């Protein structure tokens, strides 16, 4: 407990130092940055996460259980890596006077990337053994009952 309090106190001190720096910014910067701080949470919790859940529900209905692992892994890689590529895919930072910046065909790169993920996913799905009775796929199915609610 004392260790936790110590770590917590260090964290609070670091955060307060940052907060102090933050409130010393120019006022219009504080307002704009606050909008961006809130916007990130709203976009994630309000749009991205529900969208993910919707995809999970649809995929669960559409896919046989033995395909779910491969497809989920493929979608996670595809979606999260694509998020990291949004600024290059949009190339909003490109400048006419600087041809050395954002100088790849990123859409083509994404198509190649997506095709590779698709291939790997299809390969993994084909290798997935169809469930035969009760024992199938137990390597990939663990569940500890009642764990969702004890972590508050």
């Amino acid at each position, binding site marked *: 407990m004392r260790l936790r309090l110590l770590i917590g106190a260090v964290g609070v001190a670091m955060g307060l130092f940052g907060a102090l*720096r933050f409130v010393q910014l120019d006022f*219009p910067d504080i307002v704009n940055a606050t909008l961006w701080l809130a916007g990130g949470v709203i976009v994630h919790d309000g749009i*991205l996460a529900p969208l993910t859940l919707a995809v999970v529900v649809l995929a669960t209905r559409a896919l046989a259980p033995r395909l*779910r692992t491969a497809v989920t892994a493929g979608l996670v*890689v595809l979606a999260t890596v694509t998020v990291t590529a949004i600024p290059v895919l949009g190339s909003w930072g490109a400048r006419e*006077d600087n041809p050395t*910046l954002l*100088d790849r065909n990123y859409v083509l790169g994404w198509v190649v990337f997506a095709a590779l993920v698709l291939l790997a996913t299809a390969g993994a799905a084909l290798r997935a053994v169809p469930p035969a009775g009760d024992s199938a796929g137990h390597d990939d*199915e663990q569940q500890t009952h009642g764990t969702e609610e004890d972590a508050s």
Partner: protein
Amino acid sequence: MKGPPIPTEASFTSPARHEALTARVGTWLGIAFGLCFLTGLISHWYYLYDAPLTPPTRPVIGYRITQGVHVLSGIAAIPLLLVKLWSVYPKLFAAVPLGKARDLVLHLLERASIAVLVAAGIFQLVIGLANYTQWYPWSFSFRPTHYAVAWIAIGALVVHIAVKLPIIRAAYAEKLSEPVVEETRETASYGGPSRRTILRTALLASGVAVLAAAGGTVPWLRKVSVFAVRTGEGPQGVPINKSAEAAGVTTTAREAGFRITFVNGDREQSLSRDQLTAMTQRTHDLPIACVEGWSAAATWTGVRLSALLDLVDAPHDATMRVTSLQQGGAFGVTEITSGFARDPLTLLALQLNGQDLSIDHGFPCRLIAPNRPGVFQTKWVTRIEVVT
């Protein structure tokens, strides 16, 4: 019309969500955030004029490595953060304990700390990711804001670890692939990925994201880095950050009467480019490494800066003010501390990779010093004076 019911924590039934997974993804995410924070502090250090200790000039590729790690650890964190947030999303809908005041206060405090952590974490990754492509869709000043929020994010992360320590310990005591204890109807038909598979997938995605971006700073990865901001190509084999056109120097840098002036108090010495060429030329391999995380190795030829400062008997411990022909921008006038100014490798470069500097690389002459951010490797230098 009735809307859909508001979900509760129990509405989320996926057996894949579990502290054993959350703690492990969180550990990797914490490592990425930690690396990003530390390398960010190093980068920030270079921008401080009043630091009690100035950054070292060795290793020559120091900033190339730390800033590459900064950008890539930030990118690595993105898939990990998304999976981590997925694994705890039901907590957003957890019941608020309204019974005891103490429980309520603790609950709200923890929620507040998590809100700060999530907001600051997403903010840092989003603005960092945009900045590395030189895209600035906001109006706040990037550097002081990124720096302030970095401390907020890391502080909230440390608080989060302190709060969750017992859960983290319990989670690590448990195997990731605990056997099925009791099957409910949902889990019997689950068939989805195991927690171990999700952890591995998150790490795989993180690694793929890094590989796809790293070519901007790791030359042998250029071919596979389909999302790298730069191919590494450019005039004289080196990319540029600010063009002569953007700096507004296309006329002034080409003027025949160009002179660079060295100043120490009332002592002044002006030199033409031909006079610089007539001095002892030295050639050094020094990387150009930018704050956006891209970098390139290059061979520079020019006059040792220290020899030029001696022309006006500048004190050896003097900080020098370097002025560029560049119009506007925060780095048209910068300072170079004595350690960098007097380093034997620091050049006023006239050539890059065996040819006269192109105008985009800083013709007629530019500064190049070891282990320094690109923004301080001033191009189109016109005046270097002792700071008094």
